[in-house]
């Protein structure tokens, strides 16, 4: 009898597919390698802890993962009293010199993404997240909607509005 594929194997696949994107997600938000490492670690650990509950019939695993990343980011950037759980892992990731350099390179590589996020500063948080998840991370609108907890139709409307606003701002900036 062929042994069924364990969640660990599936999670390994998800990790390989998304580790770069999740690192980039946090690299666009912080220029501190330690913070990027901690938030990435926290995201994947939370996802591992909840992986058995991932219902891929409702949304893809990577959509769920980016939903968790958004929660971790909100806990990190929100007021201290807002979240009951700290965003930083209980045991912070100890970085070696070469890892700091590696993460710094990723942070540098995300300069364009950071600039785009900065341009989105005048958009609503939902519009900003929608445009990031679809245009930067590469999620399907359905996945981004699931990650943000909104209907796909709402996501599409927000996305269209956010893009047109960015175009307008570009034109007005000359």
């Amino acid at each position, binding site marked *: 009898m062929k*042994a069924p594929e364990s969640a660990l194997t599936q999670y*390994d696949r998800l990790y*390989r597919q998304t580790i770069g994107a999740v690192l980039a997600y946090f690299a666009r938000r912080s220029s501190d390698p330690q913070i990027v490492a901690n938030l990435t670690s926290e995201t*994947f650990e939370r996802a591992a802890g909840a992986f058995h509950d991932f219902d891929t019939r409702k949304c893809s695993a990577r959509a769920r993962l980016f939903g968790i990343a958004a929660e971790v980011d909100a806990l990190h950037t929100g007021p201290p009293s807002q979240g009951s759980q700290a965003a930083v892992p209980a045991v912070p990731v100890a970085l070696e010199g070469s890892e700091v350099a590696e993460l710094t390179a990723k942070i540098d590589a995300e300069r364009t993404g950071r600039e785009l996020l900065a341009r989105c500063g005048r958009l609503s948080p939902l519009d900003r997240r929608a445009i990031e998840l679809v245009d*930067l991370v590469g999620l399907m609108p359905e996945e981004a909607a699931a990650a943000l907890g909104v209907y796909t139709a709402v996501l599409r409307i927000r996305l269209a509005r956010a893009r047109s606003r960015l175009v307008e701002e570009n034109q007005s900036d000359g």
Partner: protein
Amino acid sequence: MGKFESKLWQRIVERHGAELASTTRPEHNPRGRKRPLLAGTVLALAGVGFALAIVLVPPAVSGPTPGGGGGGNSGTLVSDVGNSGIVFPTNTSTGLSSSPNPSLVGQKVTLTATITPVPDGGTVRFTDPGTTIAGCGRVPVNSNGRATCRKILTAVGRHHVQAIYSGDARYQGSQSPTINQVVSRKTTSLHLSSSVNPAAVGRQVTYLALVSPVARGGSVTFLQDGHRIRGCANVPLGPTGKATCRWTYAWPRRLTIQARYTGTARLAKSASNQLTETVKAKHK
């Protein structure tokens, strides 16, 4: 995969590996097309290929070399390993046997799960069906790759028992096929006797039904030519496993008497021998 990414994976495997390895999830069917990414974003990071390497690892435990599962036990391939040295768990398969089968209510049943290849840890959860059998939720796998649970099964019927191996950081979890454990009631026999045969009209006759083995609980119904004897239906069994029925006949006749025991949750029902009772006219 970079050094940090490999290190992070090792951290996840250390903390959540056993939990993840012990569960199975339906395969995700990813949604088709990919959307184009903006230049300079994550594509360069996410699309990095992961070159697989193979390493030899020390033997897990000593013992006979099991087949299948992509691994043995002596300097053998454990699994595919990333260029960072991440070890992925070996496939396992789980077998299950029970003894005795069928068993009686109240009898201890030994459930034995056998994991191949012999893993170096992990536990086995025995379920019936889908629900963990009390006391058999986390049975450690021994050095022979076996986990044993001795349990008294109290519910009569077919039990669809399954063993689920949790796996550990080096061995993937697996589950056995379901086996049917049949639990049946203990058989009983019922002996019927008459206090006087032939009996005389107007004289009381006492029928005695004795359940063997001596039972507690249940009741006996006495039948006369297939019909219940009035006042002798559902007579509770006494502490010594006996039930009696007293009856006085009004006219001469020849009757077939039988008793039936209802049984209990643990004891099967039974019917007695058929007794031919002759009732004679009163001698003048």
